[in-house]
């Protein structure tokens, strides 16, 4: 009797569990909140009129239309994005967030909507303008010997220089793990701040996403600056930029995945890249 009783309870509990998860998976949200940083031009930034704009804002609106949900886009400081997502302050992050192992430990990601690469920006007339490796690409996930061979001259040229990067980005990870001891890393809350410090001459260069730097260099304020050295991909720079989601939000992940595939397939993402980055995404 005891045993059957136990079994019945167990079966009941199991059905209840299945029923609940099933119910959660079935309810598609009708309204979601997407957070972005709002200070990473041209991916996401706050325009002079105070409106959020950029590639990711346009893409978010497009994806929401495809998913058939109404969405609100809010701005949130970079360092609070992932904790706030898990605290359910919003439902998704579209803030040039790169997929990495460490981040996969705390949140899940949709399919990537853009690949990533990083580069240095320096003063045209400065000593770093001739940084070795221009027009080459270093795949940090590739052959370690080749990576070291490509990095050695860069590290030597950067010896004693100070490079700015945004705290909590893969750029600081890269500088800390590959160029430690060679460069002084200065960490900033936003990329705008390191750009200001580069212009003020307090630092010798900045490291950021190449697409973002390319767009920045089109502005008249940056006519005396240029990209220098190799382009870095893979390794610490992860598997591309994707929508950050809570781990238990499988429904939303499936919705985003489908919508991103559709946006890739019909050329929407490429069109947005041409509009905002003035270059193709690949």
């Amino acid at each position: 009797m005891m045993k059957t009783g136990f079994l019945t309870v167990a079966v009941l509990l199991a059905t209840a569990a299945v029923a609940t998860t099933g119910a959660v998976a079935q309810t598609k949200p009708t309204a979601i909140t997407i957070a972005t940083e709002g200070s990473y031009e041209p991916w996401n930034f706050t325009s002079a009129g105070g409106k959020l704009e950029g590639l990711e804002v346009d893409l978010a609106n497009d994806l929401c239309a495809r998913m058939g949900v109404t969405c609100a886009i809010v701005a949130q400081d970079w360092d609070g994005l992932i904790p706030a997502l898990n605290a359910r302050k919003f439902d998704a992050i579209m803030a040039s967030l790169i997929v990495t192992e460490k981040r996969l430990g705390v949140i899940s990601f949709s399919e990537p909507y853009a690949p990533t690469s990083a580069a240095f920006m320096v003063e045209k007339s400065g000593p770093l303008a001739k940084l070795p490796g221009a027009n080459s690409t270093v795949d940090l996930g590739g052959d370690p010997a080749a990576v070291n061979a490509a990095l050695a001259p860069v590290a030597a040229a950067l010896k004693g220089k100070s490079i700015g990067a945004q705290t909590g980005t893969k750029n600081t990870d890269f500088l800390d793990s590959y160029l430690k001891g060679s460069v002084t890393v200065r960490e900033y809350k936003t990329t705008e701040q390191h750009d200001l410090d580069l212009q003020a001459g307090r630092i010798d260069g900045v490291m950021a996403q190449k697409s973002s730097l390319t767009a920045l260099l089109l502005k008249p304020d940056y006519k005396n600056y240029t990209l220098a050295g190799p382009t870095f991909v893979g390794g610490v720079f992860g598997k591309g930029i994707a929508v950050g989601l809570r781990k238990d939000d499988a429904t939303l992940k499936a919705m985003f995945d489908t919508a991103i595939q559709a946006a890739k397939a019909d050329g929407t993402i490429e069109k947005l890249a041409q509009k905002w980055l003035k270059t193709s995404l690949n």
Partner: protein
Amino acid sequence: MDFAFLQTTLLTLLGGLPLTLELAVSSILLGGGGALMLTLMQASGSLLLSAPARAYVFVFRGTPLLIQLFMIYYGLGQFRPTLQELGLWSFFRDPYWCAVLAMAMNTAAYASEIIRGGLGSVPPGALEAATACGMRPLLRLRRVILPLAIRQALPAYSNELILMVKATSLASIITMMEVTGLASKMIAETYRSIEIFACAGLIYLALTLILTRAVLLLEWRLSTTRKNGTPA
């Protein structure tokens, strides 16, 4: 509770403690000097001296330290050519000195008001009595005015000291990796904000505890009655 993680966190954050202390001590010392000057200017009786001092206190008490820090660091950074001509750029290029300058200028405004309050609390009768005893102004300052004024001002000033220790946390926005800066960096890497901020808070709490005990000891030394026989 992940004690191993808490321990590494605490050890990492303690690496920022020397910078936190340097920032606090330099800005408190410089700000103290500035405060004394401001108080003397206000007490001088000359409008030419007291009006600028009053305007300074108004501006620096009336704006947030965060904005002052931004203005001095990023704001003045845009005037590099001018500052280079004046030979001041090597000072303003360094985030450490920008942070010290902003915090010293800020605390000078508050502390000058605290000192002014302390001086104002010295009863006129005590001054008259000292003069009647034949004390010269300097002796009167040392034996009567300062002991009475400092005793009155100390509790308020200890508040200001605590605020300055905590204000050093703002220096992380201009790339100074003090305790809070290191905490933000760790959070960006691990996303464990609660444990890391708790450890950072613990460090500030310990600093404040030491500071308040030290001020209490000083208060006890300066008190006329020493009621309890021992410092609290």
